[in-house]
């Protein structure tokens, strides 16, 4: 039963008192009652209370100023979070959601567990990484204005990455309830407007009943493919005021959420195309939404003995499966007479090479007459402003549906069409693909041997050294691999859905470090060893995550890919300079791009935030022992960082 009694401080009364205090503080130094005394150390002692302060502390308060709120609305909000199974709350604390913060701690017993983040961009990116391991959203809280503004790029990354995130943004919508200038500065008329272009849905509930319904709706929408971030405003007055006496504390039921499968007729048509094709090829981008997505694609590919290219925005297909053709992707595309994209967001890029030094000159790389089919939930939800939908690709068949949910029906349809003749043809095809896959692995190993003993350390050597130490553990690579030439994906045996998570959906820098930590939090309860190959520039955008990892004792082995530059931009500058036929000396090319002079000591940076660390390491012979030390620490439940000075790519 909610109760607000007198002789306590309700939100408005508390705000008035604080405003009075602020006025006193402002006035105090200008009109002290007497000169401040100095402490023996020379530091000024506390000022004596001013007449106004004395009055505030000794005179009886006005009766209406004193209120106690025993069942604040935020308690209900936290009950809703519990009902939705939200395990973690990633946030930098902020007064606009302090009601929720307090209720999480006192009413909720620190559930969802509050993970202290040092930037709202980190909060959202951590939730992004968590979602990709756990398959469900975490909660992020932020100021409705400055917090959401900080979080914006990470929200865009999650939006493009189809990662579900529940963002609750604090706001005081009633102008009469805003205390002073800061709460006006931190208030907004339309909380969701800042990020509406790259969230799936948002709402600003005006009552607790409204909040409960919208929170459950938000969760449902976030988890329905295409999964995406959603935003809910949490009004400050609603959080801190008592729930109405007649309020029904019931939480709306969350239904079992299913994914949209493809139209049966279209699935049957695709099955016929697949069985008839001489060289069908699957291209998977985010098709493994859950662990089932991985196993279903294996079954489908093996049934047809068809090749698979894994674009690895998720862990869609085992790297060493004989049908994996990722390392010879262009040749596989050129050979195919039927290409089926599974949650591929850039089909145009699959079937074209983009030539041209200045202007883009696309060239089709498919054989004449090749059929193209897409199964993608992205077709069910797009917005227009941000261009993440990529260039339009002409297709023969589009199935707007979740690829993972469509696969069981597709597999069954294919099996029904199999004949002995086709099975024999499939086996012959599979044998050729297996040999091509074996040769691709040999080529990758040969390529990795070049520069083997180089210093700075070659990224292939770095990857091989890590693999040697983790391959017998239950491991999870929680970072992207693009920046190290994808060597882990070429050399390691990845076969579980948590072995790899893909990179930043919107390619926004500042994602890797916090997303890795969020993934490590999700891996923690399973006892997995989380390993991150961390780019230096990315870490410097979000290095507060080091403190978060130490404070919350999150086991994560971070191995720096420290090439001392925003290296991608060095290459871009060089390209432009050559296009302008004037070249660029490397020293000039480093202007604005190099992260050196002084070099950053990442081990000391980590140590300063309580993370055990070592390095910089430039000799590859020192790597193995360092990684073993790091694994030991991570297995004890703590973070560890190894700074490795590396080749650029």
């Amino acid at each position, binding site marked *: 039963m909610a109760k607000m009694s007198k002789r306590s401080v309700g939100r408005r009364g508390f705000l008035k008192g604080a405003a009075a205090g602020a006025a006193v503080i402002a006035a105090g130094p200008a009109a002290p009652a007497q000169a401040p005394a100095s402490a023996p150390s020379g530091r000024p002692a506390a000022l004596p209370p001013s007449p106004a302060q004395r009055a505030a502390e000794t005179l009886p308060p006005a009766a209406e100023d004193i209120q106690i709120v025993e069942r604040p609305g935020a308690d209900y909000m936290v009950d809703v979070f519990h009902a939705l199974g939200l395990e973690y709350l990633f946030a930098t604390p902020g007064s606009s959601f302090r009601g929720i913060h307090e209720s999480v701690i006192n009413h909720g017993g620190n559930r969802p567990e509050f993970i202290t983040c040092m930037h709202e961009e980190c909060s959202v990116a951590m939730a992004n990484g968590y979602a990709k391991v756990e398959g469900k959203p975490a909660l992020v809280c932020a100021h409705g204005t400055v917090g959401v503004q900080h979080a914006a790029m990470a929200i865009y990354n999650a939006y493009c990455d189809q990662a579900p995130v529940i963002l609750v943004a604090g706001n005081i919508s009633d102008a009469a309830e805003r205390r002073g200038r800061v709460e006006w500065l931190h208030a907004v008329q339309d909380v969701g407007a800042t990020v509406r272009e790259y969230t799936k849905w948002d709402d600003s509930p005006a009552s607790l009943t409204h909040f409960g319904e919208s929170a459950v709706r938000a969760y449902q929408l976030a988890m329905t493919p295409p999964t995406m971030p959603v935003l809910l405003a949490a009004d400050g007055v609603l959080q801190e005021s008592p729930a109405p006496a007649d309020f029904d504390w019931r939480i709306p039921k969350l239904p079992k959420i299913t994914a949209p499968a493809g139209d049966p007729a279209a699935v049957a048509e695709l099955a016929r195309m697949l069985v008839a094709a001489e060289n069908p090829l699957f291209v998977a981008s985010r098709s493994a939404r859950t662990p089932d997505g991985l196993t279903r694609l294996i079954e489908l590919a093996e049934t047809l003995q068809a090749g698979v290219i894994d674009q690895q925005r998720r862990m869609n297909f085992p790297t060493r499966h004989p049908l994996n053709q990722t390392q010879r992707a262009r040749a596989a595309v050129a050979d195919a007479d039927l290409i089926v994209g599974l949650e591929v967001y850039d089909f145009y890029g699959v079937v074209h090479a983009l030539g041209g030094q200045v202007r883009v000159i696309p060239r089709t790389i498919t054989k004449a007459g090749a059929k193209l089919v897409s199964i993608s939930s992205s077709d069910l939800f797009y917005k227009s402003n941000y261009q993440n939908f990529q260039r339009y690709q002409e297709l023969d068949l589009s199935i707007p549906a979740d690829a993972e949910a469509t696969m069981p029906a597709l597999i069954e349809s294919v099996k029904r069409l199999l004949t002995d003749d086709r099975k024999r043809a499939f086996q012959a095809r599979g044998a050729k693909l297996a040999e091509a896959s074996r040769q691709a692995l040999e080529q990758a190993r040969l390529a990795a041997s070049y520069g083997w003993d180089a210093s700075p350390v070659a990224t292939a050597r770095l990857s091989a050294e890590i693999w040697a130490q983790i391959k017998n553990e239950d491991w999870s690579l929680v970072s992207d691999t693009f920046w190290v030439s994808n060597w882990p994906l070429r050399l390691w045996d990845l076969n579980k859905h948590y072995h790899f998570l893909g990179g930043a959906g919107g390619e926004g820098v500042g994602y890797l470090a916090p997303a890795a930590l969020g993934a490590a939090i999700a891996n923690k309860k399973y006892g997995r060893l989380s390993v991150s190959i961390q780019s230096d520039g990315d870490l410097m955008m979000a290095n507060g995550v080091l403190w978060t990892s130490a404070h919350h004792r999150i086991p994560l082995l971070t191995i720096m890919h420290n090439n001392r530059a925003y290296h991608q931009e060095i290459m871009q500058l060089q390209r432009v300079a*050559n296009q302008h036929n004037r070249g660029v000396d490397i020293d000039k090319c480093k202007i604005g791009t190099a992260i050196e002079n002084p070099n950053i000591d990442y081990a000391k940076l980590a140590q300063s935030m309580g993370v055990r660390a070592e390095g910089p390491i430039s000799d590859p012979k020192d790597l193995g022992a360092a990684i073993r030390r790091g694994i030991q620490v991570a297995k004890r439940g703590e973070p560890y960082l190894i700074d490795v000075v590396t080749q*650029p790519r």
Partner: protein
Amino acid sequence: MRIIVALMAVVAAGFVVGQSKSGNAENGKKLFVKFGCYTCHGYQGQGGGAGAKLAPKPLALAALIAYVRHPSGSMPPFTDKVVTDAQLADIHAFLASVPAPPAVKQIPLLNQ
């Protein structure tokens, strides 16, 4: 005559592994950094995700020069205004001096 023409065609196509006649490998190593070749190809020309392997056993000098002037893919063209043939000869000499790595079978980490 036919033999000479055929040989020139092969060289132009870049299929011959060559040694520089007069290149200065030490200077070439500096130029390899100065012109930013390492940024895509690595400090030892080992290649990777951003650029092809150049060493050990580089293309013949003529083929290397031809490719640098008229590259394909994402590599930007380097005209003789940017890097001279003589400088490319030094770079070629450096690439030719890079020792071969151990055989893959002799590297346990690459057999796991």
